[in-house]
């Protein structure tokens, strides 16, 4: 490969001629993602208050275990969330949008476009561990499965059990609406995934009719991938907060029907 002389003097971290507030976006990403990671880690280790009536927190769905099994390590507090959260977590971590966002906000690699970086060395996504980002499509397969499971949870959230008679009746609570919105937002995010766009048609130079239509639909969602990513992320957190606070008796679920 041809090499060239080093151009104008390299500048230090944060040095730029940009007069705009270039640091605002990475700061908000840092705070937003940081808040989610802190909250979801805390919520995942609680192992309690994840159910209220027919509502199940998306951070604990699918609920694989309800009590501590014998093989569970003694030094880790039991929580069913720890069995499943790695899958949607891995999907987000390897997502093309989030990668660009957290490389900027957490690694300053770069902090913003045309802004000086703190480090001289750079490996990109060619070596371990970042070469593992290429596993995104496998997390996508799991995320699609989770989408079905969370849609099923939203369906379950419409069927309330009478505590006295035990009869199951159709109903809509505020929690039901929150749980219906959750798979919709997650669907907008997951179905607009770059890997899905590739798999449904992008991998081919010539697309057939059905493949072209699917590719166009995924591309349509993909154009707002960042928006779907943020809304779905915070809705998952909000759904867990709502169910947790209802289960703790701090909030009361408002029954509409």
């Amino acid at each position, binding site marked *: *490969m*041809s*090499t*060239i*002389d*080093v*151009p*104008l*003097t*390299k500048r230090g971290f944060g040095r*730029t*001629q*940009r*007069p*705009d507030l270039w640091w605002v976006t990475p700061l908000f990403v840092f705070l937003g993602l940081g808040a989610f990671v802190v909250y979801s880690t805390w919520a995942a280790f609680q192992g309690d208050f994840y159910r209220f009536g027919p509502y199940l927190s998306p951070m604990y769905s699918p609920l694989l275990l309800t009590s501590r099994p014998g093989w569970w390590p003694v030094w880790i507090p039991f929580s069913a969330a720890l069995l499943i959260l790695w899958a949607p977590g891995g999907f987000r971590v390897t997502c*093309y*949008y989030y*990668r*660009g966002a957290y*490389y*900027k906000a957490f690694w300053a*690699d*770069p902090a913003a*476009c*045309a802004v*000086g*970086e703190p480090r*001289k*060395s*750079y490996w*990109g*996504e*060619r070596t371990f561990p*970042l*070469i593992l980002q*290429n*596993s*995104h*499509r496998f997390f996508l397969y799991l995320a699609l499965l989770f989408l079905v499971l969370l849609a099923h949870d939203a369906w379950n959230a419409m069927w309330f059990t009478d505590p006295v008679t035990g009869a199951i009746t159709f109903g809509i609570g505020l929690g039901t609406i929150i749980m219906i919105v959750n798979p919709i937002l997650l669907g907008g995010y997951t179905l607009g995934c*770059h*890997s899905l*766009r*590739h798999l449904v048609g*992008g*991998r081919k*130079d*010539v*697309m057939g009719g059905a493949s*072209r239509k699917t590719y166009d639909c995924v591309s349509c969602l*993909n*154009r707002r991938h960042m928006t779907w990513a943020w809304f779905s992320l915070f809705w998952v957190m909000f759904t867990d907060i709502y169910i947790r606070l209802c289960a703790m008796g701090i909030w009361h679920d408002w029954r509409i029907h």
Partner: protein
Amino acid sequence: MATTSQATFRIWRGENNKGGYVDFSLEVEEGMVVLDAVHRIQATQATDLGVRWNCKAGKCGSCSAEINGSPKLMCMTRLNTLDLTKPVTVEPMRTFPHVKDLVTDVSWNFTVKQRIPPFQRRPPDSHGPDGPQWRVRQQDVDRPQEFRKCIECFLCQDVCHVLREHHMHDKFIGPRFIIHAAQLEMNPLDDGNRLEALKDDFGIGYCNITKCCTKVCPEGIHITDNAIIPLKERVVDQFYDPLQKLFRIFK
């Protein structure tokens, strides 16, 4: 009558990397672009000011520079989009060797382009009275055609931190040439395979999807979403996906 106002332009002046900023004050009018101001400075205050330009219509890609720290075409940056109460900085592109004032040597890009395997036409679909015939649908051509809008201004190369900050010109071809490779790879008439070269020689894995190239593209090409990520996915298909490998064996 056009309204006028006073503005200061802080232009980087010097040769072969040695130099500094020089302030020029001048009267500017409504409708002017940065290149107009630079030309006026060249005509009235600094006749030896080096600046490359040609079409003044955002189509030749010659007048690339860094205006207030952001890579832009000088001819497409209107003064009314800038804060003229403060000096407007105009610098040469930082990613390429400096020649004089606002002029840089972008010839590295042309040597890179020569290394990308060219178009390799696939066998014809049929043979008619006029010779071999190929059939393609417009919708399949739309994707590579987006990349043909590139005017080779090299602003994407300039803003890409792999080249700009880390000077990995010997390992990474940059976004401009990834879209060139994408234009060939996605062409339904092309039979070539550049994926191994993209992975090993052209360094597509160095891109960490900052989308800075997309943000500065004056042609609005979706470099990251429509070229880099799809090619990264094709590289995954060929080299990192065991299921695809298995599928290929059985196929």
